[in-house]
C-alpha cells in the first residue's frame, strides 16, 4: 500500500470510479475526488495532496486551465501532475507540456500503464527536486 494522497479530477463519475479502482489495484488507496478544475483548486487547498491526476475536458475549468492555475501558485508549482485524456495528437501533447504537466496518458489505459506513468513522474520529480 502506498500512502501518497492523490487528487483525481474528472467530470465523469464513471471515470472517477474506474480511476479509483485502478489506483486501488496498484496500491494507491488514499484518493480525493473533484469534478472540475474549480473544485480541484478547493480540494487542493483543504487537503495535503501529493499527486494530481486530471482529465483534459471538463466544464467550468478544463485540465489545461487547472494546471496553469496550479503552476502559477507557488504552493503547488512543484506538484506532480499527470494528465489523462482522449486527446492524442502531437499538438495536444505539446499544449499539455507547455502548461507544465509532468506526464500524459491516453485513454484507454491499464492499471499497469497508470502505475508506470505515476512512478515515472515521481522519479522525474525526485531527480529535479533540489
Amino acid at each position, binding site marked *: 500500500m502506498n500512502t501518497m494522497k492523490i487528487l483525481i479530477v474528472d467530470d*465523469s*463519475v*464513471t*471515470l472517477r*470510479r*474506474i480511476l479509483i*479502482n*485502478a489506483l486501488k*489495484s496498484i496500491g494507491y488507496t488514499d484518493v480525493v475526488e473533484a469534478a472540475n478544475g474549480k473544485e480541484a483548486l478547493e480540494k487542493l487547498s483543504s487537503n495535503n495532496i501529493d499527486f494530481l491526476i486530471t482529465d*483534459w*475536458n*471538463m*466544464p467550468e475549468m*478544463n485540465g489545461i486551465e487547472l494546471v496553469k492555475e496550479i503552476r502559477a501558485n507557488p504552493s503547488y508549482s512543484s506538484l506532480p501532475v499527470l494528465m489523462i*485524456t*482522449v*486527446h*492524442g*495528437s*502531437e*499538438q*495536444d*501533447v*505539446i499544449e499539455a*507540456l507547455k502548461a507544465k504537466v509532468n*506526464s*500524459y*496518458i*491516453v*485513454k*484507454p*489505459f*491499464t*492499471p499497469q*500503464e497508470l502505475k508506470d506513468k505515476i512512478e515515472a513522474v515521481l522519479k*522525474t520529480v525526485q531527480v529535479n527536486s533540489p
Partner: protein
Amino acid sequence: MNHLEVENILQKAAEMKVFCEYGQRTIPVLDEIAAFISEISPAIEELKAVLEVAMVNIPKAANQLTRVTEATEQATTQILNTLDKMVVKLEDLITAVSTSTKSKDLDNLINKMSALVKALVDKSGWDNDVVQLAETWDSMAKSLKAAGIADLEYILKNLQDDCTEIMMALQVQDITQQHIGTVMGTIQSVAEELQRITKGFFGEPMKKEAVINLDLPPNPELVSEQERKKMVDELLNKARSGQI
C-alpha cells in the same frame, strides 16, 4: 458643317456601332441569365424547404445522440455497481481464505489425521519407521494446507483482477461519449453555418431548435490506440531531453 464636326459625328456613329454590336452580343447572355434564374427559382425554393427540414432534424439527431450517451452511461454505472459488489465479496472471501475460515474442513481433516499419526507414534513407542512416516505426513500436511489456501487465494485474486480489467474496459464509454460529443459539435457547427447562410440568402433566419451545448474535444484521432500512446511517449521523451 466643318471637318471637325463631321469627324465627331463619325466617331459617335462608330461608338454607336460598337454599342449595338455589344448589345447584340449581350442581350442573348442576359436572356440566358433570365432563363437560368427562372429555371433555378424552383430549385432555390426546394433548397429552402430542404434546409428548413435540416434545421429541425439536425438538432433532433444531436439530441438522439445525447440520449444514446446517457443510456450507455447508465448501463456503465450499473455494471460498475455490480463489479464493485463483486470486488467487495471477493475481498471478504480472500480475507476468509487467508484466515483459514473456508479451509476449516480441510484443516479439520488434516488435524484429525495428524492426531492419529501422533497417537500412532506414541503407541509405537517412537518406532523409527513410524516416526519417519509421521515426519513425512507433517511435511505433506503443511504442503496440503498451504497449497489448498494458496490455490484458492490465487483464483480469487485472479477473479479480482478480472473485475478490475472489466472496469478498465468501461473507459470506452467515456471515450465514446467524448467522440459523440465531437460529432455533435460538428453537427452544431453545420447547423449554425446553415443558419447564417440561409439568413443571408433568404433574408430571414430559419426555424432552429435548442442549441446543443457540450464541451468537446477538438480533434479525435483516427489512429490506433497503440500508435497514439507511442507518439505521446516519444513526445514526452523529447520534452524531457529538451528537444521540444
